[in-house]
């Protein structure tokens, strides 16, 4: 079956993707809500910045992260000095890169969901005495559940498969930042590594199919509930 080294790679990949998705989700919801419901100065700019990682070559995003969040970088330096958080060449850095790359996908899916919510239902909740935050919590958010799930799955899948930005930002250090894609890439660079690479490839296919199947079941359940069935 799986060797300890292979298991470690899968575990690390899951750990990185989970952290990236969980941390990104609240920010993605807030950003999606701003873009869907609010009019404010600089909204087009925010829209562009959020979508940049989607259109930039990943290696550019990774390099930008290295400049900003590296030990000498303006943000990375401050975080290290004041909070003791290091991103460069750590698994947390891999999670940061994976999160940034998945963020626009999450925002897009959730934003579409929020835009599809009937504002009339939110008005109805307000006349029943619900404050704006209560309306969001009890009406908007539950009605967005399918989009939330879709966004989360997309973000998670992107985080699991992220390669370019991750390898640029945190390299591929076994046990620290070596994820499934970077391990596969490394193996393919070595003569005779194809067999070991194939095992990891099949493994990543299995993880992806499992994640999709689970999300499909959850999404169906949520869609039925939101439709009032």
């Amino acid at each position, binding site marked *: 079956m799986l060797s300890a080294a292979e298991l470690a790679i899968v575990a690390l990949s899951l750990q990185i993707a989970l952290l990236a998705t969980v941390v990104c989700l609240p920010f993605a919801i807030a950003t999606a809500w701003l873009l869907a419901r609010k009019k404010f100065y600089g909204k087009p700019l925010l829209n562009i910045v959020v979508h940049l990682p989607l259109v930039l070559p990943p290696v550019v995003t990774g390099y930008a992260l290295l400049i900003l969040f590296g030990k000498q970088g303006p943000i990375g330096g401050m975080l290290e000095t004041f909070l003791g958080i290091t991103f460069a060449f750590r698994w947390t850095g891999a999670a940061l890169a994976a999160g940034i790359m998945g963020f626009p996908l999450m925002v897009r899916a959730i934003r579409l969901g929020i835009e599809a919510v*009937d504002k*009339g*239902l939110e*008005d*109805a*909740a*307000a*006349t*029943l*005495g*619900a*404050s*704006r935050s*209560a*309306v969001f919590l*009890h*009406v908007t958010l*539950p*009605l967005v*559940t399918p989009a939330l799930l879709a966004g989360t799955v997309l973000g998670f899948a992107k985080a699991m498969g992220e390669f370019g930005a991750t390898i640029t930002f945190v390299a591929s250090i076994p046990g620290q930042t070596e994820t499934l894609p970077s391990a596969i890439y490394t193996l393919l660079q070595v003569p005779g590594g194809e067999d070991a690479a194939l095992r990891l490839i099949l493994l990543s296919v299995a993880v992806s199919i499992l994640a999709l199947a689970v999300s499909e079941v959850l999404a169906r359940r949520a869609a039925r*509930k*939101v*439709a*009032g*069935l």
Partner: protein
Amino acid sequence: MSLNVDIQSKLGAFELDVQLRTKAGTTVVFGRSGSGKTSLINAIAGLTTPDQGRIAFRDTVLFDAQSGVHVPSHQRRIGYVFQNARLFPHLSVSQNLDFGARFAKEPLSVAERRQMIDTLGIEALLNRRIAALSGGEQQRVALGRALLSVPRLLLMDEPLAALDTARKQEILPYFERLHAQGGPPMIYVTHDMSEIVRLADNILVLRDGRSVVGGTVEDVLADPANVKLIGVQDAGALVQGIISGHEADGLSTIDLSAGQLHVPKIGAPVGAKVRMRIRAQDVILSVSEPKDLSSQNILRARITEIQTGEGPSVAIALRTGSDRLLARITRRALAQMQLEVGQEVWAVLKANAVPPSAIARSENNGVVA
């Protein structure tokens, strides 16, 4: 004085300029589609902000453009039943019902809640999902949901408009019962006359965004000057009566203050007070006592006002006992009959002119029960 509205708003090319002062009971806001009815109650609910003016309820100012007061919807305690129910699809019926209660300062007691659910006949629906409800059931749940949030005022935006006639007749009694059981004062938007007969104490008529006529429903409907405004098909005065018998031939007899009416059988017991609308176009006038007519409904009446307009027809106000009637006849007939104010005439109407939908049970002072 409970609600006092004086607002102006410009929405694109549409201008809203409405004054409304309500007393206790139900005030019907009447007007064609596009006359500004929904804009008015959305402003009262706080869902929209008018450009100018003031809205006050009892001693609370809800909106005042000059001093910049705008109490948000959720703090107004004004219930709203929308035309299309707007139930929360992700919640069950009972979760929908209880949505507002958690925000209410003094929610209804368990017994009061049960009583409300019983009154609305929705007990069997409590565990259902929203998609499994019919249109009529949805509106009843929406009404219950609004009432369980313990509003001080209830707004209803054509709550029956999306339903067919049979469903309307099924739900109207719930609204009437609610009214009789001392529910909150209501602002009820509609353009359906049968709902006005059954529910209205007062009426405000809107036209092109302006409030043109307001007052008690009896006064407004009996005024010949309002015939065009109400619509020549729909115009007609309300009369009060008491059911005195149900005949074997399928007619019911109603005693009026000055005579009797025989109408198609109605479903209320002998002795019940009723209020009915007699359409102006169903009233025929005769200067001599009519004999050998097929109609059994002949009332002695006196002309109190003749309203001639530009069209070919004339609106005539009549008094019969303590009731008022409206009749619409042609200008030519007026000239040939030489009718004058003060003249005694006979008013004739066919039995079928008063269908059950134009009759409502009533208690004192026309308050529908």
